[in-house]
């Protein structure tokens, strides 16, 4: 007891001061490290996430766009889709809120944040129309092509209820359709889309990947989404917090030319350097608005086919196809078609995509170089700047002769 009392003599003032100094140094050290570390702890997972979104968006767009224009390879009218119609269109297609005929988003002045394209995937669902349609019909009578898979219940030549498909012919006309019913025994199938024309015997019906990528921006609700619409059934977000999506198009500056030594009546194309072939001289397609021997790409002058498009930039290299050039005509298959498209789209060879992704609101600072849209973060150590990338895709099927 006496011993304990003696040892409780307390600290001296110098001891106290040294202990306090050490304590302050240690705690100061801890705070020096912890304060920025907290910022890192908050931001770095978001940086990883942002980069991953950038990768996913660029990868998905790249892998999909590179397929654009892949055509049918069985049945009739084989070869790249660009021999028949423009498989890449610089706007949204079939926007659910806009009705069937669509050019620009509501209130938009420019569609450079949207792209639509088509390709025929690896599929047996490729066939042709069996009889001329008396009028634009929701019932398709098709041929039993050799490539057709065996008929099954509720499946005709690989077509089934809900399938996305395209129908097109040699005049440059095309329609996207959604199959609603098949009758294998009668070789009939129904679809739900109003057609732009009555197709003739021999027009192709094929399963198609129909893709519309577009940017949905709504600052009020903080929505910045890269979305994918499949042309009929689903309209889904692909990547969140994408605040810039721009498409630029580059194409062949030369006017189309009919290939020499190639008869226009030859069933196997291509017949011209690009785009749909004109009818032979003197032959008129009564279903279109063009004169005999003409189509949207070729007029007839002095008894010869003459391209309607001109050489751009001296006809060398590749030229940027501006929105104005892609919306001024001449129109294919003609200016009255519901699914008309600018003939200059047939020049298209390369797509440039500019993509910018951002962090969530709480990790964005004031709008400026670092941030396209302002956020609520007030301290630099809680900033995750936007990341932007530009890349090009050369769809292989649009460059077969290059």
């Amino acid at each position, binding site marked *: 007891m006496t011993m304990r009392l003696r040892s409780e003599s307390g600290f001296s003032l110098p001891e106290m001061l*040294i202990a306090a100094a050490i304590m302050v140094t240690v705690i100061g*050290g801890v705070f020096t490290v912890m304060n920025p570390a907290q910022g890192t702890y908050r931001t*770095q997972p978001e940086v990883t996430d942002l980069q991953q979104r950038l990768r996913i968006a660029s990868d998905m767009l790249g892998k999909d766009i590179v397929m654009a224009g892949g055509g049918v390879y069985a049945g009739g009218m084989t070869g790249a889709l660009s021999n028949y119609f423009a498989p890449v269109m610089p706007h949204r297609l079939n926007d659910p809120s806009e009705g069937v005929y669509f050019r620009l988003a509501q209130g938009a002045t420019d569609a450079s944040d949207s792209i639509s394209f088509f390709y025929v995937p690896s599929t047996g669902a490729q066939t042709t129309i069996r009889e001329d349609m008396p009028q634009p019909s929701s019932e398709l009578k098709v041929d039993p092509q050799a490539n057709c898979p065996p008929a099954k219940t509720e499946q005709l030549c690989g077509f089934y209820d809900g399938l996305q498909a395209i129908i097109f012919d040699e005049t440059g006309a095309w329609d996207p359709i959604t199959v609603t019913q098949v009758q294998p025994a009668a070789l009939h199938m129904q679809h739900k889309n109003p057609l732009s024309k009555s197709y003739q015997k021999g027009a192709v019906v094929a399963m198609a990947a129909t893709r519309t990528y577009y940017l949905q921006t709504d600052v009020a609700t903080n929505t910045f989404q890269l979305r994918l619409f499949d042309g009929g059934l689903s309209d889904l977000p692909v990547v969140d917090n994408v605040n810039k999506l721009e498409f630029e198009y580059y194409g062949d500056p030369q006017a189309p030319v009919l290939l020499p030594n190639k008869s226009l009546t030859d069933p196997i194309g291509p017949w011209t350097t690009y785009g749909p072939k004109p009818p032979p001289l003197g032959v008129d397609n009564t279903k279109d608005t063009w004169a005999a021997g003409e189509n949207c790409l070729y007029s007839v002058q002095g008894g010869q086919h003459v391209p309607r498009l001109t050489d751009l930039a001296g006809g060398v290299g*590749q030229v940027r196809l501006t929105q104005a050039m892609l919306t001024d005509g001449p129109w294919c298959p003609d200016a009255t078609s519901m699914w008309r498209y600018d003939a200059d789209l047939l020049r298209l060879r*390369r797509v440039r995509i500019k993509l910018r992704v951002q962090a969530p609101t709480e990790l964005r600072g004031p709008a400026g170089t670092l941030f396209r849209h302002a956020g609520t973060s007030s301290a630099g150590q809680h900033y995750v700047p936007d990341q932007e*990338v530009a890349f090009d895709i050369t769809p292989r099927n649009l460059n077969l*002769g*290059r």
Partner: protein
Amino acid sequence: MGLAKSRSSASSASGFSLIEVLIATLLLATALTTLAQMFALSTHTNMNARNTTYTAVLAQQKLEELRSLTWGFDTQGLPISDTSSNTAVSPETPNGGTGLAPSPGGSLGANTDGYVDYIGATGDKLGGGAVPPANTVYVRRWSVEPLPSNPNNTLILQVLVFRNRDRGTANDGAGRVMPDEARLVTVKTRKSQ
């Protein structure tokens, strides 16, 4: 027994010596520094990941650009080749560049005018030339070589993209790729329609 224990515990409650405290502080400081380095490391790793992504995308872009240049046959069946397009600027110009003309040897090892372009922070092209502009973030070099077994019709295209820095001896050997750099190789052949 109980008394002895209590006495010994009482005598050991005499506190830490200054040396003990200093050693403990040192240990704590070392631990904290190591921990802080982990944060720095995570930031650095994310930077590397970003560079790897960018270099891969930029290398892919150059390959796609070169792929889209004319390298086919005209309507008479004669070969046509684009050897003048300048892909180092945006938008590309039909003249002033090298197109698909064969590159001189070593265009992946040094900045060779006509076979190099410089990229800014957002993936924008800053132009070509032998010297990078001030705001260059990535350097992209490429080479165009005829395939020895079919030199007139087939090209080997290679692209190397790296962050703008001195690569040191990596430039000497053919095709050394350092971390967070990208090098892609492809082949392009003339096809008749």
